[in-house]
């Protein structure tokens, strides 16, 4: 397939507009995305490896990475569980209010992160509704990693649901019926028949939610409190802080590590998708 598409480049293009669309695409892509990002790379390469290493191993930087990665991982995990349930409910059941529920899933995409940030921060603060409620159980959410994770769950949920939904829609219910007829229990059917089918989509959603979480800024900085001692600073916050102190080498070094991380996640998601495409084409 790839061979064919590579070669087709030589063939005559019947549909017009190749040059024009290629020109516009490359011009804008370079101007807006590639050149600015390249500037970051170029600047960071001016640092000696030693400087670079020193910059990214400072305690607060390492702590920020730990916090961002761990909280995002946990949030992505929670989202995978609830995302799976939500997707299942939205695809398999009919009930009143379903369309509203379906539309609501995308709220975190549409709501500005700063708004989400201050709202969650207020809601989970000691005087806020949820804060007081959780306080009854001795849980303190605002200005802790708990709060930070709640914010990451908020922004990550649509990624998981929207990754799983289309796959679940195309999954033939007859599979499950077949398994049920063979005498498989409900849980067994789910684990052995449905979960393997949804696996790649679930991992994709997990990866996307995780990536978004690691880079998140607006929705977490208010609820987290950004306290270095409590280790509630996230990576994006540290970069912003360094920018404010005009510490460009520090900001760039951290950004480079972040870029590398998100590249890894993207690669991971892409590999899953290619793998999935191969599998489904075999069916």
């Amino acid at each position, binding site marked *: 397939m790839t*061979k*064919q598409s*590579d*070669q*087709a480049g*030589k*063939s*005559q293009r*019947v549909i017009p507009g190749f040059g024009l669309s290629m020109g516009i695409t490359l011009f804008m892509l370079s101007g807006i995305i590639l050149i600015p990002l390249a500037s970051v790379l170029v600047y960071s390469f001016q640092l000696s490896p030693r400087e670079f290493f020193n910059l990214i191993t400072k305690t607060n930087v390492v702590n920020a990475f730990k916090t961002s990665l761990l909280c995002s991982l946990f949030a992505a995990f929670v989202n995978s569980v609830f995302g799976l349930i939500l997707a299942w409910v939205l695809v398999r059941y009919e009930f009143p209010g379903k369309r509203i529920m379906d539309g609501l899933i995308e709220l975190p995409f549409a709501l500005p992160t700063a708004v989400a940030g201050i709202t969650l921060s207020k809601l989970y603060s000691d005087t806020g509704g949820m804060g007081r409620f959780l306080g009854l159980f001795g849980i303190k959410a605002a200005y802790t990693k708990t709060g930070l994770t709640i914010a990451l769950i908020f922004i990550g949920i649509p990624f998981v649901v929207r990754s799983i939904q289309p796959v679940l829609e195309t999954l033939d219910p007859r599979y499950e019926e077949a398994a049920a007829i063979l005498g498989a229990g409900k849980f067994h059917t789910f684990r052995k028949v449905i979960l393997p089918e949804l696996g790649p989509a679930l991992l994709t959603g997990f990866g996307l939610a995780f990536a978004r979480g690691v880079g998140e800024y607006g929705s977490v900085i208010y609820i987290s409190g950004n306290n270095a001692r409590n280790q509630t600073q996230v990576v994006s916050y540290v970069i912003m802080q360094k920018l404010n102190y005009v510490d460009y080498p520090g900001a760039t070094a951290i950004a480079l590590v972040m870029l590398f991380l998100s590249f890894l996640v993207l690669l991971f998601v892409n590999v899953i998708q290619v793998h999935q495409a191969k599998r489904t084409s075999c069916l």
Partner: protein
Amino acid sequence: MYIEMKNIEKSYGDFKASKEVNFGLKKGTLAALLGPSGSGKTTILRMIAGFETPDSGDIVIDQKRVNDLPAAERGIGFVFQNYALFRYMTVYENISFGLEVKKVHKKLIKERVMELLSLTGLEGLEKRYPNQLSGGQRQRVAFARALAPSPGLLLLDEPFAAIDAKVRQELRSWLKEMIHKVGITSIFVTHDQDEAVEVADEIIVTNQGRIEQIASPFEIYKNPATPFVAEFIGQSVRMNGYHKLKGFEKGNFLGAIIRPEFVEAFKSDNLKFQDVMGCSEEGIIEDISFRGNYLEVRLNVKGVSLTTHRSLERRPVTIGEKMHVIVYRIYAYDDEKAYLLENSLLNGVNVVTF
């Protein structure tokens, strides 16, 4: 010759899609490009249309080399496999589109569209959208749309693939009739030999990027030129041990191909075959399958497995029954060619066949 392909070569990377493709069609011919999938038939069609460019060789339409001419200027009408009707346009708009982009006068467009609507029997449907049409009607619209700018050559990519088996039969004869009525030189791609045989005046058989044979359906059927054609056409099967059968000799052949209609099996008390009883040999029925309007009977003759069709009107047979078997002819082949071998014992004998 209206359209000619001269020494066309085309490859995609290591894959040779066309090798030494040479053929020509007279004006008004309705030709079928027939071959299994991956045999290069669609590549040929797409090269003629201008969707692909050959690596070397010439494509000549109406005495003009068109290799470097853009698709739109080749004077071609193209019917796509799924018709590619413009989903957001009505039947009328679909048919008139090609004329509109050529800036033809509105009144002339209307006349032409009306003419085509009546030709294709689509009157009254001009305001419908493609999704409101049946499969057959869509094909008619695609056909009318391709014909609207009065092209010199009509290309059809698997024109029956998107249609239910039931309606397909009807549409085949409709399309054949239409194309002959319009008199346009046409080439259609198909992998279905019945379709090619029924619709086309000429069949171009392709295999592995090469052209195996170009001839009328009758010729292709009667005198396959290559082992591939012999095996591809009809319900042909390769067989070994053909020389064990009475009336055939080994010769310098690699093997043979046989079709059910080349084999006759009859009971020993069948008077109609008295004359040739001597040429027959004994076979035992191994298997019988019911095929709707006939029986397919497999016999074992001296260890050679032969298949024949038996009319339901004839006396019933049973598995294990001993029959007399005559093989009229076979296609023997060597590396390159297929040869028709007649049963030497039957020379000059008057044979009754069913």
